[in-house]
């Protein structure tokens, strides 16, 4: 029947809560665990890319491949930590850092012109030419005081996105 192991113990819940910096309440963690087990149909203790893609709402998202790279094969603790960026209890700064991580695919702390171009390509697909994308990006970068060769770090992201802030929240259904 492919059921993962037993229920979460209180100890497990507290450990997960620690790991995600108390971004979720204990009730929410229990709900997330139920969801995790539901998605992890093979019962392997992690959700594979295929199992994520079986959620149509996720599969039609233009950034799904990008996110899959970050979320594929995570165990439950890491899964919750990943989702903690979307909690209402997380600070704006942490959300901005999460976005930075999505851009910074090689995890070197710097986001290049090409990194931003990659995401822009995911978001626009075949409806903009590569030339148009480069042109638009160069234009807005220069307007913000950067150049094509600039390397953006988290401070730059905070400067650009911090004011007037962003809304990135998802509610965990608790029954």
């Amino acid at each position: 029947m492919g059921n993962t192991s037993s229920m979460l113990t209180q100890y497990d819940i507290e450990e997960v809560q620690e790991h995600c910096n108390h971004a979720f309440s204990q009730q929410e963690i229990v709900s997330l665990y139920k969801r995790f087990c539901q998605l992890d149909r093979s019962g392997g203790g992690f959700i594979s890319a295929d199992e994520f893609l079986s959620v149509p709402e996720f599969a039609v998202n233009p950034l799904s491949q990008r996110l899959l790279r970050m979320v594929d094969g995570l165990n439950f603790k890491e899964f919750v930590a990943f989702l903690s960026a979307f909690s209402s209890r997380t600070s704006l700064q942490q959300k901005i850092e999460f976005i930075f991580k999505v851009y910074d695919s090689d995890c070197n702390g710097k986001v290049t012109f090409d990194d931003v171009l990659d995401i822009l390509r995911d978001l626009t697909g075949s409806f903009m030419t590569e030339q148009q994308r480069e042109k638009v990006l160069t234009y807005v970068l220069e307007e913000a005081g950067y150049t094509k060769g600039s390397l953006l770090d988290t401070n730059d992201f905070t400067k650009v996105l911090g004011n007037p802030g962003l809304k990135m929240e998802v509610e965990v259904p608790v029954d």
Partner: protein
Amino acid sequence: MEELGSPTAEIDPDRPNIEDYLPRESIQEPNGKLHLRDLLDISPALTEAAGAIIDDSFTRCFKSNPPEPWNWNVYLFPLWCLGVVVRYGILFPVRVAILAVGWIAFFSAFLPVHFLMSGDNKFKRKIERKLVEMMCSVFVASWTGVVKYHGPRPSMRPQQVFVANHTSMIDFIILEQMTAFAVIMQKHPGWVGFIQKTILESVGCIWFNRTEAKDREIVTRKIRGHVHGADNNPLLIFPEGTCVNNHYTVMFKKGAFELGCAVCPVAIKYNKIFVDAFWNSRKQSFTMHLAQLMTSWAVVCDVWYLEPQFLRPGESPIEFAERVREIISVRAGLKMVPWDGYLKYSRPSPKHTERKQQIFAESVLRRLEEE
């Protein structure tokens, strides 16, 4: 909705607009000059993705919701144990016996009629029909089906099809015991397939194969042929194409709605008081599912035969299908979701992703022009 990009001509004729139902955050159309922030801020798309990971309406349709256990204390537990003994030790063998007797009676009448009576005459069909109806009643009795039928019974006349929501293959049996319908079914392996081939052929059944691409056209042709034949049993179609958990309805396939004839909706709602009749084909085989039904107290359900509907002038088959789906969903108390049931077996079409990309790209380009 209206801002869905200019090329409305390419709206997929096979599906109504999913954008009607999806969250709108990423479809907002900001205005004004383009800034770096607008390109860096991917939070709407991320939020949508995270929302889908945490909870999505598609997976909910196929979730078996186990009933709350009520045997959790000292005096309820022995009572429950007694119930188990009665159900497994007394009811189950009795039901199996009834089923066995029923099958024997059925075959001893059906086989001679089928093979000895010559040709394709009306009398032979009538007998076979009655026998199938009887066999279905035996089935229903074998899980103590308590079925309440509401509304006028289906009549046998041409130019009509019946459509119903789908929860399990027993839907078919429950409807069949009242009227011998012809039905469209997915070809199954094993003993079910055997029954499909021999017995159901006599009431007139059409087979399809989900996995075959060209299959839809062939099936559509067969359906049309059947519906126009005056002598055929009324055709029963489950337009969802897959079993859903009886709390939701997924999108209806338009095949049944473009035949140019009356569509009679039938709504089926199971009461989960004793057992959950949803057949979760990913979790159990049909045999296990039947065994589960036969070891529970009863299967309780309501069947409503609703008013026949016709295609309205100016209405497309898809709109017709959605209208009938709403009629059925409202009657049976089910929630409608915009997903195609076949997404259980395959990925969504890239067209949906492309549409989102198109909206975003056009917005960026437009704002770039605004100086």
